[in-house]
Protein backbone atom coordinates (compact mmCIF):
# COMPACT_ATOMS: atom_id res chain seq x y z
CA UNK A 1 0.00 0.00 0.00
CA UNK A 2 1.36 3.41 -0.87
CA UNK A 3 -0.12 6.20 1.14
CA UNK A 4 1.40 9.53 0.38
CA UNK A 5 -0.34 11.99 2.61
CA UNK A 6 -2.03 11.57 5.94
CA UNK A 7 -4.39 14.45 5.84
CA UNK A 8 -5.73 15.31 9.23
CA UNK A 9 -9.40 14.52 9.42
CA UNK A 10 -11.78 17.25 8.45
CA UNK A 11 -15.16 17.19 10.11
CA UNK A 12 -18.49 18.47 9.11
CA UNK A 13 -20.71 18.24 12.14
CA UNK A 14 -24.41 18.83 12.47
CA UNK A 15 -23.78 21.38 15.18
CA UNK A 16 -24.57 25.06 14.77
CA UNK A 17 -21.63 27.50 14.76
CA UNK A 18 -22.64 28.95 18.10
CA UNK A 19 -23.10 25.66 19.96
CA UNK A 20 -21.51 25.85 23.40
CA UNK A 21 -23.05 22.99 25.35
CA UNK A 22 -20.59 20.19 26.00
CA UNK A 23 -23.29 17.54 25.83
CA UNK A 24 -24.12 18.56 22.30
CA UNK A 25 -20.75 17.19 21.17
CA UNK A 26 -21.19 13.81 22.78
CA UNK A 27 -22.92 12.01 19.95
CA UNK A 28 -20.69 13.42 17.29
CA UNK A 29 -17.47 12.58 19.09
CA UNK A 30 -18.09 9.78 21.55
CA UNK A 31 -14.39 8.84 21.76
CA UNK A 32 -13.13 12.28 22.65
CA UNK A 33 -16.13 12.77 24.89
CA UNK A 34 -15.34 9.55 26.68
CA UNK A 35 -11.89 10.77 27.51
CA UNK A 36 -13.25 14.17 28.41
CA UNK A 37 -15.34 12.54 31.11
CA UNK A 38 -12.21 11.17 32.72
CA UNK A 39 -11.55 14.71 33.90
CA UNK A 40 -13.96 13.79 36.67
CA UNK A 41 -11.24 11.70 38.29
CA UNK A 42 -10.27 13.57 41.43
CA UNK A 43 -8.37 11.15 43.65
CA UNK A 44 -5.01 10.30 42.15
CA UNK A 45 -1.98 12.22 43.34
CA UNK A 46 1.62 12.40 42.18
CA UNK A 47 4.50 13.49 44.41
CA UNK A 48 3.85 17.23 43.97
CA UNK A 49 0.63 17.36 41.99
CA UNK A 50 -2.46 15.44 41.08
CA UNK A 51 -6.17 16.00 41.13
CA UNK A 52 -7.26 16.31 44.75
CA UNK A 53 -8.27 19.91 45.33
CA UNK A 54 -6.69 20.25 48.78
CA UNK A 55 -5.99 23.62 50.34
CA UNK A 56 -2.67 24.77 49.02
CA UNK A 57 -1.54 26.37 52.30
CA UNK A 58 -2.32 23.38 54.47
CA UNK A 59 0.72 21.17 55.06
CA UNK A 60 -0.57 19.94 58.41
CA UNK A 61 -3.64 17.90 57.56
CA UNK A 62 -3.81 14.87 55.28
CA UNK A 63 -5.71 14.74 52.02
CA UNK A 64 -8.22 15.92 51.00
CA UNK A 65 -7.88 18.88 53.39
CA UNK A 66 -4.15 19.41 53.06
CA UNK A 67 -1.04 17.81 51.57
CA UNK A 68 2.54 17.29 52.66
CA UNK A 69 3.90 19.58 49.96
CA UNK A 70 1.86 22.67 50.76
CA UNK A 71 3.25 26.15 51.41
CA UNK A 72 2.07 27.19 54.88
CA UNK A 73 2.46 30.95 54.45
CA UNK A 74 0.06 31.54 51.60
CA UNK A 75 -2.61 33.16 53.77
CA UNK A 76 -0.03 35.48 55.27
CA UNK A 77 1.38 36.53 51.94
CA UNK A 78 -2.02 37.27 50.45
CA UNK A 79 -3.61 38.81 53.51
CA UNK A 80 -6.24 41.36 52.60
CA UNK A 81 -6.72 39.81 49.17
CA UNK A 82 -9.41 37.27 48.26
CA UNK A 83 -6.75 34.59 47.68
CA UNK A 84 -6.19 34.53 51.44
CA UNK A 85 -9.69 33.16 51.99
CA UNK A 86 -9.33 30.06 49.89
CA UNK A 87 -6.94 28.74 47.28
CA UNK A 88 -7.04 25.13 46.21
CA UNK A 89 -5.09 22.85 43.98
CA UNK A 90 -6.48 22.69 40.46
CA UNK A 91 -8.39 19.63 39.28
CA UNK A 92 -10.10 18.58 36.08
CA UNK A 93 -11.73 20.97 33.61
CA UNK A 94 -15.11 19.42 34.29
CA UNK A 95 -15.02 20.99 37.77
CA UNK A 96 -14.16 24.50 36.68
CA UNK A 97 -17.63 25.98 37.17
CA UNK A 98 -18.46 23.91 40.24
CA UNK A 99 -15.25 24.93 42.02
CA UNK A 100 -15.72 28.51 40.98
CA UNK A 101 -19.20 28.64 42.49
CA UNK A 102 -17.89 27.26 45.77
CA UNK A 103 -14.74 29.29 46.16
CA UNK A 104 -14.59 31.73 49.05
CA UNK A 105 -12.58 34.22 46.99
CA UNK A 106 -15.91 35.38 45.60
CA UNK A 107 -18.12 36.92 48.25
CA UNK A 108 -21.07 34.65 48.90
CA UNK A 109 -22.23 36.69 51.88
CA UNK A 110 -23.54 39.46 49.74
CA UNK A 111 -25.60 39.91 46.64
CA UNK A 112 -22.42 41.16 45.01
CA UNK A 113 -19.34 38.99 44.75
CA UNK A 114 -16.94 41.89 44.90
CA UNK A 115 -15.07 40.70 41.82
CA UNK A 116 -15.68 41.48 38.17
CA UNK A 117 -17.41 39.27 35.62
CA UNK A 118 -13.97 38.81 34.08
CA UNK A 119 -13.44 36.02 36.54
CA UNK A 120 -15.72 33.90 34.45
CA UNK A 121 -13.39 34.31 31.52
CA UNK A 122 -11.58 31.04 31.95
CA UNK A 123 -14.27 28.83 33.32
CA UNK A 124 -16.13 27.84 30.17
CA UNK A 125 -17.60 28.67 26.80
CA UNK A 126 -20.47 30.80 28.14
CA UNK A 127 -18.05 33.67 27.71
CA UNK A 128 -18.68 33.50 23.99
CA UNK A 129 -22.33 34.41 24.53
CA UNK A 130 -21.79 36.90 27.31
CA UNK A 131 -19.11 38.88 25.51
CA UNK A 132 -21.08 38.77 22.30
CA UNK A 133 -24.10 40.09 24.16
CA UNK A 134 -22.53 42.86 26.21
CA UNK A 135 -19.24 43.59 24.51
CA UNK A 136 -16.68 45.36 26.68
CA UNK A 137 -19.44 46.27 29.15
CA UNK A 138 -19.45 42.71 30.30
CA UNK A 139 -16.18 42.77 32.20
CA UNK A 140 -17.11 45.14 34.99
CA UNK A 141 -20.44 43.47 35.77
CA UNK A 142 -20.35 41.87 39.22
CA UNK A 143 -19.30 38.24 39.13
CA UNK A 144 -22.37 37.03 41.06
CA UNK A 145 -24.73 38.34 38.40
CA UNK A 146 -23.89 35.28 36.27
CA UNK A 147 -23.99 32.65 39.02
CA UNK A 148 -27.29 31.17 37.94
CA UNK A 149 -26.94 31.92 34.27
CA UNK A 150 -25.21 28.71 33.25
CA UNK A 151 -25.24 24.95 33.64
CA UNK A 152 -22.56 23.63 35.96
CA UNK A 153 -21.54 20.70 33.78
CA UNK A 154 -22.76 21.62 30.34
CA UNK A 155 -21.04 24.98 30.45
CA UNK A 156 -17.82 24.14 32.18
CA UNK A 157 -14.60 24.32 30.13
CA UNK A 158 -15.32 22.30 27.06
CA UNK A 159 -15.32 21.74 23.35
CA UNK A 160 -16.40 25.21 22.27
CA UNK A 161 -13.48 26.80 24.14
CA UNK A 162 -11.04 25.29 21.67
CA UNK A 163 -13.00 24.10 18.63
CA UNK A 164 -15.22 25.51 15.91
CA UNK A 165 -18.34 23.41 16.44
CA UNK A 166 -19.00 23.02 12.72
CA UNK A 167 -15.56 21.79 11.70
CA UNK A 168 -13.77 21.06 14.96
CA UNK A 169 -10.87 23.17 13.79
CA UNK A 170 -8.92 24.65 16.65
CA UNK A 171 -9.96 28.19 17.50
CA UNK A 172 -9.56 30.75 20.25
CA UNK A 173 -12.54 31.86 22.27
CA UNK A 174 -10.34 34.02 24.50
CA UNK A 175 -10.46 37.80 24.09
CA UNK A 176 -7.15 38.60 25.84
CA UNK A 177 -5.25 36.07 23.75
CA UNK A 178 -6.86 37.30 20.55
CA UNK A 179 -5.87 40.83 21.55
CA UNK A 180 -2.31 39.75 22.19
CA UNK A 181 -1.95 37.96 18.86
CA UNK A 182 -3.37 40.98 17.09
CA UNK A 183 -0.84 43.21 18.83
CA UNK A 184 1.87 40.95 17.41
CA UNK A 185 0.39 41.07 13.91
CA UNK A 186 -0.45 37.38 14.06
CA UNK A 187 -3.50 35.54 12.83
CA UNK A 188 -4.36 32.33 14.67
CA UNK A 189 -5.69 30.68 11.54
CA UNK A 190 -2.35 31.13 9.78
CA UNK A 191 -0.24 29.70 12.56
CA UNK A 192 1.31 26.25 12.45
CA UNK A 193 -0.71 23.46 14.02
CA UNK A 194 2.02 22.91 16.51
CA UNK A 195 1.68 26.45 17.82
CA UNK A 196 -2.07 26.14 17.98
CA UNK A 197 -1.75 23.09 20.18
CA UNK A 198 -0.09 25.29 22.80
CA UNK A 199 -2.05 28.48 22.25
CA UNK A 200 -5.41 26.89 23.03
CA UNK A 201 -4.03 26.28 26.53
CA UNK A 202 -2.44 29.72 26.54
CA UNK A 203 -5.97 31.10 26.54
CA UNK A 204 -6.18 30.35 30.26
CA UNK A 205 -2.94 28.92 31.69
CA UNK A 206 -1.29 32.33 31.77
CA UNK A 207 -0.63 35.27 34.03
CA UNK A 208 -3.33 37.94 33.61
CA UNK A 209 -4.62 41.17 35.06
CA UNK A 210 -7.72 43.32 34.71
CA UNK A 211 -7.34 46.76 33.16
CA UNK A 212 -7.55 49.87 35.31
CA UNK A 213 -10.16 52.03 33.66
CA UNK A 214 -7.83 54.69 32.29
CA UNK A 215 -6.10 52.00 30.25
CA UNK A 216 -9.15 50.67 28.40
CA UNK A 217 -12.45 49.02 29.20
CA UNK A 218 -12.48 48.66 32.99
CA UNK A 219 -11.68 45.15 34.19
CA UNK A 220 -11.04 43.77 30.75
CA UNK A 221 -8.54 40.90 31.04
CA UNK A 222 -5.08 41.42 29.60
CA UNK A 223 -1.87 39.41 29.44
CA UNK A 224 1.19 41.42 30.53
CA UNK A 225 3.47 40.23 27.76
CA UNK A 226 4.54 43.36 25.89
CA UNK A 227 8.13 43.07 27.13
CA UNK A 228 8.38 39.31 27.04
CA UNK A 229 7.50 36.25 29.07
CA UNK A 230 10.06 36.27 31.85
CA UNK A 231 9.32 37.42 35.41
CA UNK A 232 11.51 40.50 34.99
CA UNK A 233 9.71 41.40 31.74
CA UNK A 234 6.28 41.19 33.31
CA UNK A 235 7.33 42.96 36.47
CA UNK A 236 8.69 45.85 34.41
CA UNK A 237 5.53 45.89 32.34
CA UNK A 238 3.33 46.34 35.40
CA UNK A 239 5.34 49.34 36.58
CA UNK A 240 3.45 51.74 34.32
CA UNK A 241 0.13 50.10 33.64
CA UNK A 242 -1.92 51.26 36.58
CA UNK A 243 -3.43 54.09 38.51
CA UNK A 244 -1.60 53.73 41.77
CA UNK A 245 -0.75 57.00 43.49
CA UNK A 246 1.11 55.72 46.48
CA UNK A 247 4.53 57.33 46.75
CA UNK A 248 7.15 55.15 45.11
CA UNK A 249 4.49 53.23 43.21
CA UNK A 250 3.04 55.99 41.04
CA UNK A 251 1.53 54.58 37.87
CA UNK A 252 2.07 50.98 38.97
CA UNK A 253 -0.57 48.43 38.31
CA UNK A 254 -1.57 47.08 41.70
CA UNK A 255 -3.69 44.05 42.60
CA UNK A 256 -4.07 44.96 46.27
CA UNK A 257 -2.20 46.59 49.08
CA UNK A 258 -0.76 44.26 51.68
CA UNK A 259 -2.21 45.57 54.94
CA UNK A 260 0.75 44.53 57.09
CA UNK A 261 3.53 46.19 55.13
CA UNK A 262 1.26 48.63 53.28
CA UNK A 263 2.84 47.47 50.05
CA UNK A 264 1.07 47.77 46.68
CA UNK A 265 1.32 44.17 45.52
CA UNK A 266 1.01 42.06 42.42
CA UNK A 267 -0.61 38.65 42.26
CA UNK A 268 0.68 36.12 39.75
CA UNK A 269 -1.58 33.39 38.43
CA UNK A 270 -0.80 30.10 36.71
CA UNK A 271 1.89 31.27 34.24
CA UNK A 272 2.26 27.83 32.65
CA UNK A 273 2.44 29.16 29.12
CA UNK A 274 5.06 31.79 29.96
CA UNK A 275 7.15 29.34 31.91
CA UNK A 276 6.98 26.62 29.30
CA UNK A 277 7.70 28.86 26.33
CA UNK A 278 11.46 29.09 26.81
CA UNK A 279 11.90 25.96 28.87
CA UNK A 280 13.64 22.79 27.76
CA UNK A 281 10.54 21.47 26.02
CA UNK A 282 8.93 24.72 24.95
CA UNK A 283 12.04 25.91 23.18
CA UNK A 284 12.25 22.56 21.39
CA UNK A 285 8.69 22.89 20.12
CA UNK A 286 7.21 20.27 22.42
CA UNK A 287 3.80 21.67 23.24
CA UNK A 288 1.20 21.33 26.00
CA UNK A 289 -0.93 18.91 23.99
CA UNK A 290 2.04 16.60 23.39
CA UNK A 291 2.25 15.87 27.11
CA UNK A 292 -1.22 16.64 28.37
CA UNK A 293 -3.23 15.36 25.38
CA UNK A 294 -1.08 12.56 23.98
CA UNK A 295 -2.57 10.26 21.41
CA UNK A 296 -4.31 7.29 22.96
CA UNK A 297 -5.77 4.20 21.44
CA UNK A 298 -9.37 3.49 22.11
CA UNK A 299 -10.82 0.03 22.21
CA UNK A 300 -11.64 -0.15 18.54
CA UNK A 301 -7.97 0.64 17.84
CA UNK A 302 -8.64 4.16 16.71
CA UNK A 303 -6.17 6.74 17.92
CA UNK A 304 -7.45 10.04 19.26
CA UNK A 305 -6.09 12.94 21.24
CA UNK A 306 -6.67 12.29 24.89
CA UNK A 307 -9.00 14.93 26.24
CA UNK A 308 -8.11 14.19 29.82
CA UNK A 309 -6.00 17.14 30.80
CA UNK A 310 -4.13 16.12 33.86
CA UNK A 311 -0.68 15.31 35.21
CA UNK A 312 1.11 13.01 32.75
CA UNK A 313 2.69 11.37 35.79
CA UNK A 314 -0.64 9.93 36.91
CA UNK A 315 -0.13 7.30 34.21
CA UNK A 316 2.34 4.82 35.73
CA UNK A 317 3.64 4.06 32.24
CA UNK A 318 4.22 7.72 31.39
CA UNK A 319 3.00 6.96 27.89
CA UNK A 320 2.73 10.64 27.03
CA UNK A 321 6.44 11.12 27.68
CA UNK A 322 7.62 7.92 26.11
CA UNK A 323 6.48 8.66 22.59
CA UNK A 324 9.60 10.84 22.58
CA UNK A 325 11.62 9.29 25.39
CA UNK A 326 11.05 5.68 24.44
CA UNK A 327 14.65 4.85 25.32
CA UNK A 328 13.92 5.66 28.97
CA UNK A 329 11.94 3.78 31.59
CA UNK A 330 8.98 5.41 33.32
CA UNK A 331 10.88 5.18 36.61
CA UNK A 332 13.86 7.01 35.17
CA UNK A 333 11.72 9.79 33.77
CA UNK A 334 9.83 10.16 37.01
CA UNK A 335 13.10 10.42 38.92
CA UNK A 336 14.26 13.18 36.62
CA UNK A 337 11.05 15.13 37.06
CA UNK A 338 11.43 14.81 40.82
CA UNK A 339 15.07 15.85 40.62
CA UNK A 340 13.87 19.26 39.43
CA UNK A 341 10.68 19.43 41.46
CA UNK A 342 12.27 18.74 44.82
CA UNK A 343 14.86 21.46 44.34
CA UNK A 344 12.21 23.86 43.13
CA UNK A 345 9.82 23.16 45.96
CA UNK A 346 12.51 23.45 48.62
CA UNK A 347 13.60 26.81 47.25
CA UNK A 348 9.96 27.89 47.02
CA UNK A 349 9.52 27.25 50.72
CA UNK A 350 12.58 29.34 51.48
CA UNK A 351 11.54 32.18 49.17
CA UNK A 352 8.12 32.15 50.80
CA UNK A 353 9.64 32.55 54.27
CA UNK A 354 11.91 35.44 53.33
CA UNK A 355 8.94 37.16 51.75
CA UNK A 356 7.00 36.86 55.02
CA UNK A 357 9.99 38.20 56.90
CA UNK A 358 10.09 41.19 54.55
CA UNK A 359 6.48 42.11 55.30
CA UNK A 360 7.17 41.79 59.01
CA UNK A 361 10.31 43.91 58.72
CA UNK A 362 8.47 46.73 57.00
CA UNK A 363 5.63 46.45 59.50
CA UNK A 364 8.13 46.91 62.30
CA UNK A 365 9.79 49.77 60.46
CA UNK A 366 6.49 51.53 59.89
CA UNK A 367 5.63 51.28 63.58
CA UNK A 368 9.10 52.02 64.81
CA UNK A 369 9.23 54.65 67.50
CA UNK A 370 12.97 54.76 68.09
CA UNK A 371 15.47 56.89 66.25
CA UNK A 372 15.13 56.58 62.52
CA UNK A 373 17.60 56.92 59.68
CA UNK A 374 17.80 60.30 57.95
CA UNK A 375 16.29 58.94 54.75
CA UNK A 376 13.85 56.74 56.64
CA UNK A 377 10.97 57.37 54.30
CA UNK A 378 12.89 56.52 51.14
CA UNK A 379 14.36 53.45 52.70
CA UNK A 380 10.94 52.15 53.68
CA UNK A 381 9.62 52.79 50.19
CA UNK A 382 12.61 51.05 48.69
CA UNK A 383 11.94 48.14 51.03
CA UNK A 384 8.33 47.98 49.90
CA UNK A 385 9.40 48.00 46.27
CA UNK A 386 11.60 45.02 47.01
CA UNK A 387 8.72 43.24 48.77
CA UNK A 388 6.55 43.73 45.70
CA UNK A 389 9.23 42.39 43.42
CA UNK A 390 10.37 39.53 45.63
CA UNK A 391 6.87 38.25 46.18
CA UNK A 392 5.96 38.53 42.49
CA UNK A 393 9.01 36.48 41.55
CA UNK A 394 8.15 33.87 44.16
CA UNK A 395 4.55 33.78 42.97
CA UNK A 396 5.59 33.30 39.34
CA UNK A 397 6.91 29.89 40.38
CA UNK A 398 4.49 29.20 43.20
CA UNK A 399 1.43 29.81 41.03
CA UNK A 400 2.95 27.89 38.15
CA UNK A 401 1.60 24.38 38.39
CA UNK A 402 4.52 22.18 37.30
CA UNK A 403 6.77 22.83 40.33
CA UNK A 404 9.63 23.78 38.05
CA UNK A 405 9.40 20.99 35.48
CA UNK A 406 8.17 23.21 32.65
CA UNK A 407 11.42 25.21 32.90
CA UNK A 408 13.94 24.02 35.51
CA UNK A 409 16.63 26.67 35.02
CA UNK A 410 14.19 29.57 34.88
CA UNK A 411 12.29 28.33 37.93
CA UNK A 412 15.37 28.04 40.10
CA UNK A 413 16.88 31.28 38.86
CA UNK A 414 13.62 33.12 39.53
CA UNK A 415 13.48 31.76 43.06
CA UNK A 416 17.05 32.77 43.83
CA UNK A 417 16.15 36.27 42.59
CA UNK A 418 13.01 36.32 44.69
CA UNK A 419 15.04 35.48 47.77
CA UNK A 420 17.50 38.26 46.99
CA UNK A 421 14.81 40.90 46.52
CA UNK A 422 12.97 39.92 49.69
CA UNK A 423 16.21 39.86 51.66
CA UNK A 424 17.00 43.32 50.32
CA UNK A 425 13.62 44.46 51.63
CA UNK A 426 14.54 43.17 55.08
CA UNK A 427 17.93 44.89 54.94
CA UNK A 428 16.42 48.22 53.87
CA UNK A 429 13.75 48.13 56.56
CA UNK A 430 16.43 47.46 59.17
CA UNK A 431 18.51 50.31 57.85
CA UNK A 432 15.51 52.66 58.03
CA UNK A 433 15.27 52.04 61.76
CA UNK A 434 19.00 52.21 62.28
CA UNK A 435 18.78 48.49 62.93
CA UNK A 436 16.48 49.00 65.86
CA UNK A 437 14.22 46.27 64.57
CA UNK A 438 16.96 43.82 63.65
CA UNK A 439 16.85 42.01 66.93
CA UNK A 440 13.17 41.21 66.57
CA UNK A 441 13.86 39.70 63.18
CA UNK A 442 16.73 37.52 64.34
CA UNK A 443 14.67 34.49 65.18
CA UNK A 444 13.13 31.59 63.40
CA UNK A 445 10.48 33.00 61.10
CA UNK A 446 7.93 30.48 62.38
CA UNK A 447 8.25 32.17 65.77
CA UNK A 448 8.24 35.72 64.55
CA UNK A 449 5.26 35.27 62.26
CA UNK A 450 3.44 31.96 62.60
CA UNK A 451 1.66 30.69 59.50
CA UNK A 452 -2.03 31.54 59.35
CA UNK A 453 -3.61 28.13 59.20
CA UNK A 454 -7.25 29.08 59.08
CA UNK A 455 -8.92 32.03 57.50
CA UNK A 456 -12.03 32.67 55.45
CA UNK A 457 -14.69 35.29 54.88
CA UNK A 458 -16.83 33.66 57.55
CA UNK A 459 -14.00 33.55 60.06
CA UNK A 460 -13.21 37.18 59.40
CA UNK A 461 -16.66 37.94 60.78
CA UNK A 462 -15.70 36.29 64.04
CA UNK A 463 -13.93 38.64 66.51
CA UNK A 464 -12.50 35.63 68.38
CA UNK A 465 -10.84 34.28 65.29
CA UNK A 466 -9.48 37.70 64.56
CA UNK A 467 -7.53 37.57 67.80
CA UNK A 468 -5.67 34.40 66.81
CA UNK A 469 -2.94 36.05 64.77
CA UNK A 470 -1.00 39.27 65.18
CA UNK A 471 -1.39 40.19 61.54
CA UNK A 472 -5.21 40.04 61.66
CA UNK A 473 -5.24 43.39 63.37
CA UNK A 474 -4.38 44.97 60.04
CA UNK A 475 -7.59 43.84 58.42
CA UNK A 476 -11.07 44.74 59.58
CA UNK A 477 -13.38 42.37 61.39
CA UNK A 478 -16.22 41.98 58.92
CA UNK A 479 -19.79 42.60 59.99
CA UNK A 480 -21.60 39.34 60.68
CA UNK A 481 -23.52 38.29 57.60
CA UNK A 482 -25.36 35.23 56.40
CA UNK A 483 -24.50 33.39 53.29
CA UNK A 484 -26.48 34.79 50.36
CA UNK A 485 -25.30 32.43 47.66
CA UNK A 486 -24.87 28.68 47.85
CA UNK A 487 -23.50 27.65 44.50
CA UNK A 488 -26.14 28.78 42.07
CA UNK A 489 -28.86 29.09 44.68
CA UNK A 490 -29.73 32.40 46.23
CA UNK A 491 -30.62 31.66 49.86
Amino acid sequence: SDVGELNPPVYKTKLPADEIRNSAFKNEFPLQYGYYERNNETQVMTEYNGSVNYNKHNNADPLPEGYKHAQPYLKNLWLGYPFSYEYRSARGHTYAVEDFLKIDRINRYDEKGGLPGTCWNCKGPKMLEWVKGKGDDFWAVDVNAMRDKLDVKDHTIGCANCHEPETMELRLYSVPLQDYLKSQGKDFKQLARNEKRALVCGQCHVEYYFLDKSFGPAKKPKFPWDNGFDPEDMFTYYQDQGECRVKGFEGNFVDWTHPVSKTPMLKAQHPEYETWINGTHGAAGVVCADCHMAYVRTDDKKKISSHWWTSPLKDPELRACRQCHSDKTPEFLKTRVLFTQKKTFDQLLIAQEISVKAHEAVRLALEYTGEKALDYENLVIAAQQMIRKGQFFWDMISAENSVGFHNPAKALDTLASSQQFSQKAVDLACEATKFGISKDLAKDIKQIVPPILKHSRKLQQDPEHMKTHEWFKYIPVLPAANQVWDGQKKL
Partner: protein
Amino acid sequence: MRASPKNSKNGPPRLWLWILGLVMGSVITVGAGIGMQISDRRPFCAGCHIMNEAAVTHKISAHAELACNECHAPHNLAEKLPFKAVAGTKDLYLNTFEKIEMPLKAGESTRQVVNTNCKACHHVTNTTVAAMDVKGLCTGCHRNVQHMRMKPVSTRSVGDV
Protein backbone atom coordinates in the same frame (compact mmCIF):
# COMPACT_ATOMS: atom_id res chain seq x y z
CA MET B 1 48.37 -1.67 14.93
CA ARG B 2 44.92 -3.03 15.22
CA ALA B 3 45.00 -6.63 16.34
CA SER B 4 41.62 -7.89 15.25
CA PRO B 5 40.15 -6.85 11.94
CA LYS B 6 36.67 -7.80 13.15
CA ASN B 7 34.91 -4.63 12.23
CA SER B 8 37.25 -3.33 9.64
CA LYS B 9 36.11 -4.64 6.35
CA ASN B 10 37.71 -1.76 4.65
CA GLY B 11 40.81 -2.85 2.83
CA PRO B 12 42.25 0.27 1.24
CA PRO B 13 41.47 -0.68 -2.38
CA ARG B 14 37.82 -1.42 -1.59
CA LEU B 15 37.65 -3.56 -4.68
CA TRP B 16 34.85 -5.67 -3.38
CA LEU B 17 32.71 -2.62 -3.04
CA TRP B 18 33.04 -1.75 -6.65
CA ILE B 19 32.08 -5.27 -7.44
CA LEU B 20 29.05 -4.98 -5.22
CA GLY B 21 28.24 -1.70 -6.87
CA LEU B 22 28.40 -3.34 -10.22
CA VAL B 23 26.16 -6.08 -9.01
CA MET B 24 23.76 -3.52 -7.68
CA GLY B 25 23.84 -1.61 -10.90
CA SER B 26 23.09 -4.65 -12.93
CA VAL B 27 20.38 -5.58 -10.53
CA ILE B 28 18.77 -2.25 -11.08
CA THR B 29 18.92 -2.57 -14.81
CA VAL B 30 17.64 -6.08 -14.78
CA GLY B 31 15.11 -5.19 -12.15
CA ALA B 32 15.30 -8.68 -10.84
CA GLY B 33 13.84 -9.57 -7.49
CA ILE B 34 16.67 -11.28 -5.74
CA GLY B 35 19.43 -8.73 -6.17
CA MET B 36 16.98 -6.02 -5.30
CA GLN B 37 16.10 -7.70 -2.07
CA ILE B 38 19.66 -8.36 -1.10
CA SER B 39 20.66 -4.81 -1.75
CA ASP B 40 17.77 -3.58 0.40
CA ARG B 41 18.79 -5.40 3.53
CA ARG B 42 20.96 -4.82 6.52
CA PRO B 43 23.80 -7.21 5.63
CA PHE B 44 24.29 -5.44 2.34
CA CYS B 45 24.13 -1.93 3.74
CA ALA B 46 26.26 -2.83 6.71
CA GLY B 47 28.90 -3.92 4.27
CA CYS B 48 30.13 -0.37 4.44
CA HIS B 49 31.76 0.34 7.76
CA ILE B 50 30.31 3.80 7.67
CA MET B 51 26.82 2.25 7.85
CA ASN B 52 27.78 0.29 10.94
CA GLU B 53 26.18 2.53 13.51
CA ALA B 54 22.88 2.62 11.63
CA ALA B 55 22.96 -1.13 11.25
CA VAL B 56 23.74 -1.77 14.89
CA THR B 57 20.87 0.37 16.11
CA HIS B 58 18.57 -1.07 13.48
CA LYS B 59 19.34 -4.56 14.63
CA ILE B 60 18.17 -3.89 18.18
CA SER B 61 15.18 -1.78 17.22
CA ALA B 62 11.50 -2.61 16.98
CA HIS B 63 11.98 -2.46 13.21
CA ALA B 64 14.81 -4.97 13.12
CA GLU B 65 12.90 -7.29 10.84
CA LEU B 66 12.48 -4.68 8.16
CA ALA B 67 14.91 -4.26 5.32
CA CYS B 68 16.74 -0.94 5.41
CA ASN B 69 15.14 0.10 2.22
CA GLU B 70 11.65 -0.47 3.46
CA CYS B 71 12.34 2.85 5.12
CA HIS B 72 15.08 4.28 2.99
CA ALA B 73 13.75 3.85 -0.49
CA PRO B 74 10.39 4.61 -2.02
CA HIS B 75 8.04 1.64 -1.89
CA ASN B 76 6.72 2.33 -5.31
CA LEU B 77 9.00 0.55 -7.79
CA ALA B 78 8.90 3.29 -10.39
CA GLU B 79 10.34 5.74 -7.88
CA LYS B 80 12.47 3.20 -6.14
CA LEU B 81 14.70 2.28 -9.04
CA PRO B 82 16.00 5.74 -9.86
CA PHE B 83 16.19 6.63 -6.14
CA LYS B 84 18.27 3.60 -5.39
CA ALA B 85 20.51 4.17 -8.34
CA VAL B 86 21.24 7.73 -7.26
CA ALA B 87 21.55 7.00 -3.55
CA GLY B 88 23.63 3.91 -4.18
CA THR B 89 26.00 5.62 -6.55
CA LYS B 90 26.31 8.62 -4.25
CA ASP B 91 27.06 6.48 -1.19
CA LEU B 92 29.54 4.47 -3.15
CA TYR B 93 31.26 7.47 -4.70
CA LEU B 94 31.46 9.48 -1.51
CA ASN B 95 32.58 6.50 0.47
CA THR B 96 35.46 5.95 -1.88
CA PHE B 97 36.58 9.41 -2.79
CA GLU B 98 35.38 12.01 -0.31
CA LYS B 99 36.04 12.98 3.24
CA ILE B 100 32.89 12.12 5.14
CA GLU B 101 31.91 14.43 7.96
CA MET B 102 30.82 13.03 11.30
CA PRO B 103 28.12 12.70 12.35
CA LEU B 104 26.36 11.44 9.25
CA LYS B 105 23.40 13.51 8.34
CA ALA B 106 20.24 12.38 6.60
CA GLY B 107 19.60 14.44 3.52
CA GLU B 108 16.29 16.13 2.85
CA SER B 109 15.25 13.51 0.31
CA THR B 110 16.03 10.77 2.83
CA ARG B 111 13.88 12.47 5.39
CA GLN B 112 10.94 12.75 3.07
CA VAL B 113 11.24 9.24 1.72
CA VAL B 114 11.51 7.75 5.18
CA ASN B 115 8.61 9.77 6.47
CA THR B 116 6.42 8.73 3.60
CA ASN B 117 7.25 5.14 4.43
CA CYS B 118 6.31 5.55 8.08
CA LYS B 119 2.96 6.82 7.00
CA ALA B 120 2.54 4.05 4.48
CA CYS B 121 3.10 1.24 6.95
CA HIS B 122 1.29 2.82 9.82
CA HIS B 123 -1.59 4.11 7.81
CA VAL B 124 -4.23 2.13 9.59
CA THR B 125 -3.70 3.38 13.09
CA ASN B 126 -3.05 6.92 12.04
CA THR B 127 -5.75 7.98 9.69
CA THR B 128 -8.17 8.74 12.47
CA VAL B 129 -5.97 11.15 14.35
CA ALA B 130 -6.02 14.87 13.95
CA ALA B 131 -2.46 15.87 13.59
CA MET B 132 0.12 13.23 12.92
CA ASP B 133 1.92 15.85 10.92
CA VAL B 134 2.24 18.51 13.63
CA LYS B 135 5.97 18.02 14.00
CA GLY B 136 6.69 17.87 10.32
CA LEU B 137 8.14 14.38 10.64
CA CYS B 138 6.88 11.33 12.49
CA THR B 139 10.24 11.28 14.24
CA GLY B 140 9.36 14.63 15.82
CA CYS B 141 7.65 12.44 18.40
CA HIS B 142 9.07 9.00 17.72
CA ARG B 143 12.61 10.19 18.17
CA ASN B 144 14.09 6.77 18.79
CA VAL B 145 13.21 5.51 15.37
CA GLN B 146 16.03 7.76 14.18
CA HIS B 147 18.47 5.02 15.04
CA MET B 148 18.25 5.55 18.79
CA ARG B 149 20.21 8.70 18.68
CA MET B 150 19.66 9.69 22.29
CA LYS B 151 21.47 6.63 23.54
CA PRO B 152 25.04 6.98 24.79
CA VAL B 153 27.47 6.89 21.89
CA SER B 154 29.25 3.81 23.23
CA THR B 155 26.10 1.76 22.80
CA ARG B 156 25.96 2.56 19.13
CA SER B 157 29.49 2.84 17.91
CA VAL B 158 33.14 1.96 18.30
CA GLY B 159 36.28 3.72 17.21
CA ASP B 160 38.83 2.95 14.57
CA VAL B 161 36.57 1.47 11.90
